[in-house]
């Protein structure tokens, strides 16, 4: 960052399958209030607002930034909306950070949300657009073939996906905000229904209602706040088109490029040993070993070995998704910002029961589209 940027407040809703007690604006407002309280700030202290969510057909609310302007406290302030499909939450946080790094704004409120219960996410994401090939199997059916290719390429044993899912659930049990928290064994995951072979029901993210808001600030404001800030050491978003000859859909080049870019900017040479916790976007279990490789935490075709050894568990070398991750909480638009916000909480030392010990540097990550958009933020306890 040209000028230092920090996360100074984090607020999220409890995530659940159906929030029938609130409408979208009220749900979003809960996260906003909690983030402002966390930062010790009022709406008057905020200079501009950056909103992110997944495609509008999810709730059928077009221009949510217009509908939500009041709930977000955007009266007489700039507001913009960001959209990069599933990665949008992380991209939105990075867009907010750029607003601060530009020097134009001192404090930004940024919000991401989804209220999946009000629409139908699976089919809202794969409608039949004119002149394009029909997507005949929803999001799971789109990603499952690449999980199969990963398994074939890497020689990963078939149970690895279930191990990822059970570990994520164990972690979610320690996160009071997580949607799915009931204990689940590897056997239960293995015995659950095969939805999109090789992906089983309990290896698939839920549909969640929820929101998260962050307050981000420049150095002066961050140092004046009541709490220890989480400094953004580097952040970037990279994209690749869906249909490119020789495109590696299993470990997309845009993801590898994004990781290298942020590590270089953050001065990280050995991510496996220099990062203490990572919140990565895993909507289907097999994406955990796949992204461990894409993010440079494991050599090619060896991400599954990290899972097999248990090195991604709490208390081990590099805890992955201590919050329980997307596999247990998936308000789609918010999911990427939850990864970023949870990484911030970890470096602040305020992640509660799922806090990892001794975190100096944390990574937040999201992907979206046909595994085309990648957003990564590196957060640190010290500037």
């Amino acid at each position, binding site marked *: 960052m040209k000028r230092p940027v920090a996360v100074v407040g984090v607020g999220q809703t409890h995530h659940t*399958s159906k929030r029938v007690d609130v409408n979208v604006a009220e749900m979003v407002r809960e996260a906003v209030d909690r983030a402002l309280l966390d930062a010790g700030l009022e709406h008057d202290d905020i200079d501009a607002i950056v909103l992110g969510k997944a495609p509008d057909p999810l709730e059928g609310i077009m221009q949510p930034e217009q509908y939500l302007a009041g709930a977000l406290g955007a009266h007489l302030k700039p507001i913009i909306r960001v959209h990069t499909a599933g990665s949008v939450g992380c991209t939105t946080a990075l867009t907010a950070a750029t607003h601060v790094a530009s020097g134009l704004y001192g404090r930004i409120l940024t919000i991401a949300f989804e209220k999946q219960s009000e629409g139908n996410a699976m089919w809202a994401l794969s409608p039949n657009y004119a*002149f394009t090939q029909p997507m005949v199997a929803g999001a799971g059916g789109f990603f499952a073939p690449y999980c199969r*290719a990963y398994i*074939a390429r890497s020689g990963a044993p078939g149970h690895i996906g279930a191990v990822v899912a059970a570990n994520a659930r164990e972690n979610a049990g320690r996160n009071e905000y997580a949607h799915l928290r009931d204990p689940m064994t590897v056997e239960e995951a293995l015995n659950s229904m095969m939805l999109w072979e090789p992906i089983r029901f309990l290896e698939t993210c839920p549909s969640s209602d929820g929101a998260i808001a962050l307050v981000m600030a420049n150095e002066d404001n961050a140092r004046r706040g009541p709490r220890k800030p989480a400094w953004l050491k580097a952040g970037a978003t990279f994209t690749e088109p869906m249909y490119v000859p020789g495109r590696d859909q*299993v470990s997309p080049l845009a993801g590898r490029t994004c990781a290298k870019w942020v590590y270089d900017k953050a001065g990280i040479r050995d991510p496996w040993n220099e990062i203490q916790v990572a919140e990565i976007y895993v909507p289907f279990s097999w994406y955990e070993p796949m992204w461990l490789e894409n993010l440079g935490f494991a050599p090619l075709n060896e991400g599954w070995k990290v899972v097999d050894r248990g090195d991604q568990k709490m208390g081990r070398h590099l805890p992955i998704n201590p919050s329980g991750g997307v596999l247990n909480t998936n308000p789609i638009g918010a999911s990427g910002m939850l990864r970023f916000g949870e990484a911030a909480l970890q470096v602040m030392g305020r992640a509660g029961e799922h806090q990892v010990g001794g975190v100096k540097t944390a990574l937040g990550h999201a992907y979206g589209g046909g595994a085309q958009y990648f957003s990564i933020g590196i957060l640190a306890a010290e500037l």
Partner: protein
Amino acid sequence: MSEPPKERVKYIDTNLNLPYHYYAGDYKALYLRALRDKKILGSRCSKTGKVFVPPVIASPESLAPCDELVELPHRGIVTTFCVVNVPVIGREIEIPYVVASVALDGADVSLYSLIQECAAADVRMGTRVEAVWKPDGERQGDHTDIRYFRPTGEPDAPFESFIHRL
């Protein structure tokens, strides 16, 4: 979780239905018209020689024009796939069914397609397949003109030949 309360004030069901008139563009229309004539057109990149299907007018990779149209065979291989056990809203496909990435012979990008006329368990990475078309007179010039692909029964393609071009 409990179902949403059905009291009228707290909850309504509604649909958004909006009519649109989309234009394919003259270049893409060539491809769609060819489908109606039971032909699959691709376009070749003037810089890299790679073949795109559906044809693109410029390569997203090299950014060079792809103005040479090439006719592609109706056969290819399943590079990877999944078996779907979830019913599809608005479509009458019997489950389980297979969706696959199909690399047509001579093409450098794959089509995302249904595989039918075989048991799901009989589809493999490398299975050779061919297009099954709607009959003459029923093809409208859109992607549904190819109903699905089916196995040809030929020997599978070797793993190394496709695993890095899914």
